[in-house]
């Protein structure tokens, strides 16, 4: 199990660095741009806040874009949310299917290791990669705050990025379950899942009739504006997310330990 984990960690080291530096770098650039744009933002904040449903969708009715917290929630939050979610999909969508796609399953599964252990070893590699991704990004954002001379509180960062990690884990879990069913790499499906959930969250925020369906998308409980404006997390949504994650892992395990390897 350790060998499989180590191998997967080594395999994804470049992807991890590339994604975390790109997402973290873009976030840091936004943070550094804030001081230069603060005055312009003050003028725009009122108009942004008065855009009705769209203001609500992006949380601009609760947080002023003219403040660092509001700017972070709307700008950095969007980049981090989408970047982190896509990284989770990239990591997990092919994690199991790549063995059959690359014809390496016959080598791997001729070794005396239970398929269930392979499922867990690969999942551990996903968790470690996601954790490192968020740590690196938060580290880069922290550096941005230091350069800017102001920042968010540790509690706010912990709450928001904790929920972002859970969002990443839930999306990775769903993609991982899909991966157990496929014999070929289907990254497009993973990215489609992410964009579908993101669009679903946006629709639920824009349209009052759709609001009751907002729990369907994991982006709902990880929304930066919600968390940073209230200082609270949506415990119900997060609990549902954990439930979906566990169910997805169970499906991945059940399917992969029983499937005929191609």
């Amino acid at each position, binding site marked *: 199990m*350790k*060998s*499989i984990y180590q*191998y997967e960690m080594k*395999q994804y080291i470049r992807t991890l660095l590339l994604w975390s530096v790109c997402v973290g770098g873009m976030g840091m650039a936004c943070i550094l741009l804030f001081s230069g744009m603060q005055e312009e933002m003050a003028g725009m904040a009122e108009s942004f806040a008065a855009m009705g449903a769209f203001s609500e969708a992006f949380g601009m009715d609760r947080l002023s874009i003219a403040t660092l917290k509001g700017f972070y929630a709307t700008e950095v939050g969007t980049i981090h949310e989408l970047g982190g979610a896509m990284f989770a999909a990239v990591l997990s969508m092919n994690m199991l299917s790549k063995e059959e796609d*690359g*014809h*390496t*399953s*016959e*080598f791997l*599964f*001729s*070794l*005396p*290791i*239970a398929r269930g252990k392979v499922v867990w070893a690969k999942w551990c590699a996903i968790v470690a990669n996601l954790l490192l991704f968020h740590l690196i990004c938060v580290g880069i954002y922290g550096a941005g705050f230091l350069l800017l001379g102001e920042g968010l509180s540790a509690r706010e960062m912990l709450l928001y990025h904790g929920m972002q990690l859970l969002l990443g884990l839930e999306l990775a879990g769903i993609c991982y379950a899909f991966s157990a069913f496929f014999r070929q790499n289907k990254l497009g499906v993973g990215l489609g899942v992410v964009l579908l959930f993101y669009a679903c969250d946006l629709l639920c925020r824009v349209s009052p009739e759709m609001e009751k369906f907002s729990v369907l998308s994991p982006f709902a409980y990880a929304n930066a504006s919600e968390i940073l404006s209230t200082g609270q997390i949506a415990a119900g949504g997060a609990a549902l997310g954990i439930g979906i994650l566990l169910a997805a892992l169970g499906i991945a395990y059940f399917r992969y330990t*029983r499937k*005929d*390897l191609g």
Partner: protein
Amino acid sequence: MKPVIEIAHLTKRYGKNRGVTDLSFTVAQGEIFGFLGPNGAGKSTTIRAMLGFIGFDSGEIRLLGKDIRREREEILAQVGYMPSETMFYPNMKAGEIIRMAAQVRRKDCREEAGILCERLQVDTEKRICELSLGNRKKVSIVCAMQHRPELFIFDEPTSGLDPLMQTAFFQLIREYVEQGATCILSTHVLSEVRRYCDRAAILKEGQLQRVDTVSALTRAGAKRIKWVRDGRQEEFIYEGDLNDLHKELAGHDITDLLIEEPSLEEAFMEYYRS
């Protein structure tokens, strides 16, 4: 000798498609067993079921006295397998793959791996993506042999290997078998079966046609007939009663007649066609 492979009434279907049907045979310890059949006969299906890659609908597979469904990991700890399509992780070095296989087995195989790499001339520093099929096969041989398993399962092992390496490979097999290992190999190369196998099974359309010693398989039924009858030379494989053949010859001018065992290739071709 105790049986190392026991397959009883194995049936595997892929939906409506046939896999193998009611397959039964055993392989004893110390045997080199050939597994023959045309493409799609069910050889790979049988091997994949033996290794637990695929489930099966009915029957039983016992390797080394253990049930593959219940004791898969214990069995695989004592099995060395080489697939026909030898693929590894492309970015890893050959040496890393060999070490990874040993690590998963929790065995220190460095000494044996070193000997095998030297005999097979494996460049352990090269990445898998830089290796030809033949060189990947050599890495696969090292992975299959370095832990000195009790049972070898090879699926078309020599495809892609040059003649020198083929000889070295079979020499290794013989050495391990002399030390008590057992080997089953699926192949299309009949000369390998004739030269190295004790017994062979012939599979066709998912069903076992025959299991016997290689010498008995070539003797079964068919004869190669060469004659000069009424001044015309003829040569053919005859499967019928020799008395009928004798009657057929009556009244003809026979100036030359030769009845001999067919070659292994001819014998197997008869099984394939029938």
